[in-house]
Structures are given as structure tokens and as C-alpha cells.
């Protein structure tokens, strides 16, 4: 299993745009260590639409150049310590966004469109700092009506964790449709799962409705409890104690290095 995950990590080349899901949607924590071991830096992280532990650990390991996100937080466990430190010393480039702008960018990519127009944002400092976004007057109105254009967001690689795949590469994402949206927008999608079933998930209408079809999935690997210490919807809850332990340890660079050296991240 560990070798499977290392195989998946080979897709993470230096400088790529890497799409990662929000903490409650299905984070492949099992892939964090193999990515860090591979030590390919200069990554541009795209958090859909926010980031947490995995993002903080990749930043702490010095692999990240840019973070495109609506927030980075450890939730109940508090602020993300290595992210906050990297912001303070200016070692990462920030592309602050707002959640629906990330969704809009992915949707543009999904449709093969250059951009998606979006309400809100006008008058915010988020917009002021995003030179890649544009404001135009709504061309369908009689005049005025400014609207923001969000360019398509196309991750090179997306990595997430889901409950189940079949041996044909179809992945069950249930109602976590943002995972499907990420895969539609990405050139490569890598999925770790709790289990792999023999029967096609498309054979049954009830499971088929929640399936991300294999056409969008590059590789699947087995990783039981692969979201830990995060939870996985419908499967197991988050281990908040462990998140708190990390948050404390990672307040300093030394504490972070210590935590990473001593904590078994692959599922036992």
C-alpha cells in the first residue's frame, strides 16, 4: 500500500498547481507524507475552497510557493501555524480568494470556458489584490452593472480521499460534489479510498448517482483511514485531539520538524 501511495506521489512534479479539498470533504492525509518524501517544491496549492492540516504541513516542509485559497485554518484546533508563520515572513505568495470564486473558477474549467462571471467582491481588498481577475460592465445590461470575471482554475493534479471505488476506477463521492468539480477541472486526479469493491458502482442506479466516473480519475489507491486525523463523511469522525496536538507542536519550526519526524502519518 505504501508503495502505491509513493507511486501516486510521482505525479506531483515541481511547480505544479495542486488542487486539495476542504477539511470536511475528504482530504487524502495518507498522501501527505509520500508527497513530502518526494520533496518536489515550488508547488502552487489551490484550496477548494479552504485549506487545513495538509496545506499547513506542505508549507511547513518548504514545498510551497503559492497558496490560492479562501482561508487556511485548523478549525476547532485554531489557526494554521506554519501557514501563519510563512505569511509573516513573506516566504509564500498569497492569492486570497472567497469560496464561491474558487468554485466559479473550477466551474469555468469544467465547461472549457475562459472565465465565469460572479457577483460580490467589488469594493473588497481581495479583488484589489487579484490582478488576474477582471471587472467588466455586464454586456447584457443597458449600461453599468459591474461584474467580476474569475478565470478558469485548472489544477495540474487534484488529490482527495473518498469512501469507495470499484476496480474499474469509478469513485463514489456521494453528495460531496466539489470533489467531482475538482476532478472535472484537473488534468490529473489521484484518489485514495477506504475500500475497493468488485462490482461496478455504475451498475446500481443508487450508487451511480454519486459516482465520479473513471474517465476523470487517473489513479486510485487503497488507504484505509486515509483521511486521519481528519474525519471522512459517513465513515469516521475527526480526531480533534490530534489536530490540537499538531497545532501546539507546530507553533515553531523546530516543533513542526519534531512532530513530522515522530508522528506516524500513514494509517497503522
Amino acid at each position: 500500500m505504501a508503495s502505491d501511495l509513493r507511486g501516486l506521489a510521482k505525479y506531483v512534479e515541481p511547480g505544479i498547481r495542486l488542487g486539495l479539498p476542504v477539511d470536511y470533504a475528504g482530504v487524502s492525509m495518507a498522501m501527505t507524507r509520500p508527497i513530502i518524501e518526494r520533496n518536489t517544491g515550488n508547488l502552487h496549492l489551490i484550496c477548494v475552497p479552504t485549506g487545513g492540516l495538509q496545506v499547513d504541513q506542505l508549507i511547513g516542509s518548504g514545498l510551497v510557493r503559492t497558496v490560492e485559497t479562501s482561508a487556511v485554518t485548523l478549525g476547532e484546533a485554531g489557526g494554521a501555524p506554519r501557514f501563519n508563520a510563512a505569511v509573516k515572513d513573506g516566504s509564500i505568495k498569497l492569492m486570497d480568494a472567497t469560496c464561491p470564486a474558487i468554485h466559479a473558477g473550477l466551474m469555468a474549467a469544467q465547461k472549457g470556458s475562459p472565465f465565469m462571471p460572479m457577483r460580490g467582491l467589488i469594493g473588497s481588498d481581495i479583488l484589489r489584490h487579484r490582478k488576474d481577475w477582471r471587472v467588466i460592465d455586464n454586456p447584457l445590461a443597458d449600461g453599468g452593472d459591474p461584474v467580476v470575471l474569475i478565470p478558469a482554475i485548472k489544477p495540474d493534479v487534484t488529490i482527495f480521499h473518498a469512501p469507495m471505488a470499484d476496480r474499474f476506477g469509478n469513485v463514489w463521492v456521494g453528495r460531496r460534489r466539489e470533489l467531482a468539480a475538482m476532478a472535472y477541472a484537473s488534468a490529473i486526479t489521484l484518489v485514495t479510498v477506504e475500500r475497493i469493491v468488485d462490482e461496478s458502482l455504475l451498475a446500481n442506479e443508487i450508487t451511480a448517482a454519486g459516482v465520479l466516473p473513471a474517465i476523470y480519475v487517473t489513479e486510485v489507491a487503497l488507504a484505509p483511514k486515509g483521511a486521519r486525523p481528519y474525519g471522512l463523511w459517513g465513515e469516521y469522525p475527526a480526531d480533534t485531539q490530534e489536530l490540537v496536538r499538531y497545532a501546539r507542536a507546530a507553533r515553531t519550526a523546530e516543533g513542526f520538524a519534531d512532530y513530522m519526524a515522530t508522528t506516524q502519518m500513514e494509517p497503522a
Partner: protein
Amino acid sequence: MTDIHPREILICTIAKLLDGVRHVAVGASSPIPASGAMLLRALKQQAGETGPRISILGSVEHNFFTNGSAELFDCAGQGRIDAFFLGGGQIDGQGNINLVGAGEYPQSQVRWPGSFGSAYLYYVVPRVILFREEHTPRAMVEKVDFISAPGLSDEGVYRPGGPIALLTSKALFRFDKDRRGFDLQSVHPGYDLAAIKEATGFKFAHDETPAQTALPDPQVLKLLRERVYDEVAETYPDFAAQMRREIAQPLSHAS
């Protein structure tokens, strides 16, 4: 039953501010706003009405969305969400909110998580309640260091939504769109105008002697304690347990 916990005044105030909404959304770690929404729903149901639909982000049991995390925003963009709560590390006198960080951007000396959905929801949800328990000059500032979302928009900008009120641990303000600022509506028990002025970094309109925030009626308090905390506990077990612990002992000993 006679002692009222300060947070119960906040919960009851929120229920009043939400009166009439059909659908209210609440952020993942917002137990007090969620309690206010659940109290309103219980009051409506007691009166034989349906009560508002409540969406709690990140919750499994209070989440009926099936189209991923984008659906909340799509729903809000169409006007299907009537009320939402926003906070921020800084809130200023014009209703601007900052969820990003203190000091220079991007190299913030104190970085907060980020803007989340505020730069959209603040524009499109008609009844946004600004809620922040901390009421100090560092939280309530004259001008925010970074505008995650502005309180008001220029003429011609699509803006059906925005702030209607600001609720803190010390006071309730109403937002006056025409005057582009806050009016002090009422002061919670234990505080007076001088205390509010001292705690607030921005100027606000006020009566010479501001009203005291209304205390919950006994039957409302009974409903809150006998029913609503049970519902709250399903999503916020720690918060519900803490409230029960603190109302079980005399307030002078509560934290």
C-alpha cells in the same frame, strides 16, 4: 431559573433579529447564532407555525445540500437564504469586515484564516448579522486594515444584501445604510454608554441614555433551557454542556 446567563441574552436577541426569515445559514463554528436560530424555530413551532429552515455549514444533520459546498453560495445568489452571520478579526464603523489579518497585506503580522465566503454572502444575503463576542477597541476599529467585504457598495453595484445589525457581548447596534454607520440600539446588563464608548474604536450614533437590551421572557428562557439546548447539543455538544454547567451555578461563580 431566575439567573440569566449573558450568552442567553445574546441567543434571545439573535432569535428576535431573525424573526420572519424563511431560511438562515450559520457557519460551522457558530454555536450562539445557531442557538438563536434554533430558539426562533422552537418559538414558531410552539405557536403552530413552521419556523425557519436552518443550514449549519459542515454539519451532517443540519445540511440538506447535495451539490457540494458550492450549493450554499448558489442558493444565496438566488435569494434563497434570508439571513447569515459574519464576524471578523476587525469590524469598522462603516460595516467593513476583515477576516484576513492585522497590519500590512500580504505580509500580515497577525494572520487570520481568511475571508471564506464573506466577499459574496455579505453582498447577496439580505439580513447579515455581524456577530462578535469580543467588544474591544482592537476588534471594533475605526478602519479595518483589510476589507474582506465592504459594509456598503457604490451606487450601481449589485448589492441586495448587507449588514442589518452588530451584536457583541456588550451591546446591540443597528446599521443605518443612509448614514453609513452604526446606531447603538441597546446596552446589555452590566454596561453603560461610557463603557461602550471606551470599548469601541469607531464613532456611533446613540441616545443620551441608551436602552438596556431586553431580557428573555421566562417562557422563552424555559423553552431555551428545556428544549433548544438539546437540539444545540447535536451539533455543538461542548457548547451545550458548557451552557448547562454555567446556568446550573450562580452567575457570580460562572466564568
